[in-house]
């Protein structure tokens, strides 16, 4: 997957919990938890959405790598290039 495709996937997962999301207004390097008022339930649903879309397991400890668009793309690129742990 290209970075652009990954970015799309992250935004899609995010939009499932924050439908009013305006991509243009989102700073890609900053935590969207504050920008989009994402609470832990939203965040969990976002992670689950990523998990379902990309079919990768995301350990709880790794969730902190998913809080900005840029971090998430980088993390997912890394994860997808490794053989899946499952």
């Amino acid at each position, binding site marked *: 997957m290209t970075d652009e495709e990954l970015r799309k996937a992250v935004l899609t997962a995010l939009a499932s919990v*924050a439908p009013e999301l305006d991509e243009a207004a989102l700073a890609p390097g900053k935590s969207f938890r504050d920008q989009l*008022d994402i*609470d*832990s*339930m939203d965040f*969990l649903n976002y*992670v689950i959405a990523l998990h379902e879309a990309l079919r990768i*397991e995301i*350990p*709880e400890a790794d969730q902190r790598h998913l809080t900005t668009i840029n971090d998430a793309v980088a993390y997912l690129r890394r994860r997808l290039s490794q053989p899946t742990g499952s």
Partner: protein
Amino acid sequence: MPEFRMPSLGADMEAGILVEWLKKPGERVSRGDVIAVVETQKGAIEIEVFQPGTIERQMVQPGQKVAVGAPMALIRGEGEAAGAAPAPAAPAAPIPAPPAALGPAAGRVSPAARRRATELGLDLAGLLGSGPGGAVGLADVEAAAARRTQPAAAMREVIGAAMARSKREIPHYYLGHTVDLEPALLWLEAENLKRPVAERMLYGVLLLKAVALALHEYPEFNGVWSGGRFQPSEQINPGVAVSLRQGGLIAPSINGADRLTLPQLMAALRDLVRRARVGGLRSSELSDSTITVTSLGEQGSESVYPVIYPPQVAIVGFGAVATRPWVVDGAIAPRRVIVSSLAADHRVSDGHRGARFLAAITARLREPDRL
């Protein structure tokens, strides 16, 4: 023959507008079946039937505004003869007039409002009028349009009315208690490690379950104030305050939370939050709560001083999880703690019992594996 009547979906609801019937005449319905969708100030809500039987006749049509308690349909019970209703000409009967209580202007829409609604593609059927004589005016249409994109406005009114009533009528008392959450969180983290992402749990579930279980010992916090007295509830149905993305909040209940396992409770909570945020709550989920649990920890507030949602008599709040120096076994150690709080109705309970109720919640959280 029993009548199906417009249910009261909240303390401030006076009427609802029938959006659609989901069951047709002649169809069998069981207790709990969703029979219709009704538009309220809170949004479209599915309403259930509690009377098993067969729908004999629908008495109101979509678009009609129906006062709380007004009959909407006739339901023929098991073994009851068809046509027992004294309405042989029923199918040809004209649509009943709206209840007189709605006033002469009910259903009136100003020309400007009608045009604006057309422009906005807004369905006028759901609107309550604030114009002269209760007619729907331009402002009502604009407000409805704003609500559509920002439901907060109408909800704010509902919350405001309920909270004002609460503060006016309920003599609140408040208690706070700091809970050492370290054991519970450690247990949860270990548990989550074993679980695939879709089955992970949030610590809020532990809090909810602890409250539900503690209510077994303190039933005076579980129930409603009705008819001038407290009516305890057999069922433990904690309402969970869910903040909505557009603002406002709603507190649907998880019925029988005390009997659900943590994973079941987590699933129920996830489902509830999702449905609360996209719409699609059931009427009973909004009217069945026997107590409310609210958590504002995510926003960093250390403690919450909540307001009771009438007709309930208590609300339990949780603040943020914070790491604090804590004395453990005579030595100071960093521990993650949380402040629990209780607002309760003095007409029903006293601070003494309230303090013990909070202590019981704390005790449950100390033994997470037993939750």
